[in-house]
């Protein structure tokens, strides 16, 4: 039995960085511009206080990691002309941080992370990536298992120079953060409104998919503004209608007023699928792929194939296996 999710000791860290860690495990999109990124380190488990680090080349980074065996290592999503001062911004990856521990609906109800919520995070990642590719036509997308969830890192040239505002808008689109407002003026001059499930394309479709995901994963403990416990019970009892895509009937059963409140609540929960602060921050540092997440003793891993990736098999360091 593998003892996962336990904190690594300084000895474990040393073992990991001297015996197991290899520079080749850092993805190429970081290796090829190490000299343009800011690095940050946490040596004590108190957070990344050692920032503004700069490595001229891979050799210096290797030496640093082997010698210091940090509690956690990070590198910037941005490239800079002078990374040691975080000056001369060149570009930033677009990042979505899906943390299994912070998912807004968690049927597993575990305290930290477990296999079930890690799987759930994987499902969210797959949905977001589909939207990034199909709706926004973005490419060069990398998935990193962070230790307790996933980072989606987009390097498509289209987004590298975008500002925070547009990144925030992309985030709202891919997670379904706004209830679609669909109205038009009819032939008689009156304003007609449509529900999101009536338009099977673009953003309304994304919102419908995310709504389905959220409602089907409700544990019943979720608090939604203006929705009582009694109403929540009714929603849970009727949610099979959503499974079979009978949204209109579902709306009829719970009533249009409750439905509107529910959709507002769903949009708010959708926004919690990812950590929005990470997406809009152009100067964020993110856990370095290949480094050790010492809090849970797992390797931050570049995921080549999301479908077959199993963190409990592919991101467990040797020292954990030895102990087990």
């Amino acid at each position: 039995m593998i003892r996962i999710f336990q904190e690594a000791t300084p000895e474990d860290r040393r073992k990991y960085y001297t015996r197991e860690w290899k520079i080749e495990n850092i993805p190429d999109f970081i290796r090829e511009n190490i000299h343009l990124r800011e690095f940050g380190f946490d040596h004590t488990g108190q957070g990344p206080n050692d920032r503004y680090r700069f490595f001229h080349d891979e050799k210096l980074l290797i030496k640093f990691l082997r010698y210091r065996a940090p509690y956690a290592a990070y590198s910037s999503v941005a490239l800079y002309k002078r990374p040691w001062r975080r000056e001369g911004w060149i570009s930033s990856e677009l990042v979505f941080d899906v943390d299994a521990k912070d998912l807004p609906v968690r049927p597993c109800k575990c305290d930290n992370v477990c296999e079930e919520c890690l799987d759930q995070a994987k499902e969210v990642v797959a949905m977001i990536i589909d939207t990034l590719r199909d709706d926004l036509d973005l490419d060069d997308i990398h998935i990193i298992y962070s230790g307790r969830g996933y980072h989606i890192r987009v390097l498509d040239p289209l987004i590298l120079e975008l500002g925070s505002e547009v990144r925030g808008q992309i985030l709202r689109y891919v997670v379904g953060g706004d209830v679609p407002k669909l109205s038009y003026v009819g032939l008689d001059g009156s304003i007609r409104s449509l529900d999101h499930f009536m338009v099977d394309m673009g953003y309304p479709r994304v919102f419908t998919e995310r709504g389905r995901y959220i409602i089907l994963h409700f544990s019943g403990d979720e608090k939604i503004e203006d929705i009582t416990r009694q109403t929540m019970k009714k929603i849970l009892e009727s949610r099979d209608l959503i499974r079979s895509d009978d949204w209109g009937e579902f709306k009829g059963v719970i009533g249009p007023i409750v439905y509107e409140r529910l959709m507002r609540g769903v949009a708010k929960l959708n926004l919690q699928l990812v950590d929005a602060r990470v997406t809009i921050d152009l100067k964020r540092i993110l856990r370095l792929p290949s480094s050790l997440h010492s809090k849970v003793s797992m390797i931050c891993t570049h995921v080549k194939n999301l479908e077959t990736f199993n963190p409990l098999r592919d991101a467990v360091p040797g020292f954990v296996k030895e102990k087990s």
Partner: protein
Amino acid sequence: MMSTIFINPFSQEAKERVKAIGDINRIMEDDPRLFRIIEHTSGQKLDDDSKIPGSLWELSIKRIEWYLKKRGRGKYNPGYYRFLFNPELAEFDVVAFYILAQAIGARFNPNSRETRIFIESEGELVKERLSTMENHLKERISTSILEELLDGETPHWSQLEKLLENRRIKLTELILKNGKVILDKESQQGRNRHIIEALREKIIPYLIIQETEKYINKVHKMAAKIEPHPTLLELADKIREKISQQFFIPKKAGAGTIRASRLDFDAFPPCIKNTMAGVKAGNRNDAIVLLLTGFLSYARLYPAVFKDRKPHKVSDFDPNLDVTLNEILPLIYEAADNCEPPLFQDDPQEKFNITAKLGFGLHETPSLEHEGESKWYTPMSCEKIKIHLPSLCKPDKLCEKIQNPLTYYNRKRWEKKGKGDKDIPRSNTRR
């Protein structure tokens, strides 16, 4: 057949027409053809000659005046401006557009109030012209505009980056497929067709706004190298005068208005109180520059901004900047010093950013000569605070009902007043 130049001044046809008839030396001359068109405009009120433009110069001013009157609280009689919606006027109108754009671009900063009002007025004109058009005509013109400005009816979403950045449109309002924005009505059927139609009508005024912004920037850059025509500068001054009249703040505000007064610290929302107490590294910059600067300046000078929605300048309320320099800035700087570590100790350039957020460009301290180099920013909304500064957001009961810290401040002051707290006790004005 109606020409697209009435909606799109950036079409090839519009540019050619302007080249042919837009002689800057003659724009002040009366043109009987212009009068004839106005006279024959259906519904046009003709009882007052002073309200009818006789020259291109006067027509340019009327375009701005229409917008100011329409969005102002004063008397607005649409009958005096019907000619602006008469397609017969298209040729004169497009020349007036370029005269205005050049005058404003040459004289004012691209972020100035004058520029913003002109750009907004253009968007509003296009919107209203489109809404009064017959459907088949609207379709034809919309298609040609999309082709001219976006190279087709299915542009890539990234072509709308500027509109997204300015939040004029939201990505979630668009219908996207493989990166393309679907604006091609013919490819859709049933309900989807109606949705696309509504989207087309919404997006076109914003496309014109986007192009107008680009054009103004170009003119502004050129004006730094080439001396602008004196007539244009004269027109710009006239426009400034018109706008200032509209934005003059009477000393006695009417009943029900939210008046500027000394700051009432007790009425500050929790996020502002937390910011004033000092913020830890990581959140300091956003809290001081984006949240506190906008909050304190608007709370002190123009608390009714969300009610009036007028693009005022700081000097409209504080003509010599006495309040700004002696009351507002010291409070912001004090909060910056309370940060851990003190904000200006390692980020001295943030003083420049604070000045910029007050509308005085990137300078260390605000001065009237730089006003308009940037926009006077309103404080962040509660939604943004929750994302950017979650550690400062400790909502109380009143927070549930509001969406911006400034609204909280006004509501709380109003509640206090209702409870008989007639004036702010001296002890609450400065802590």
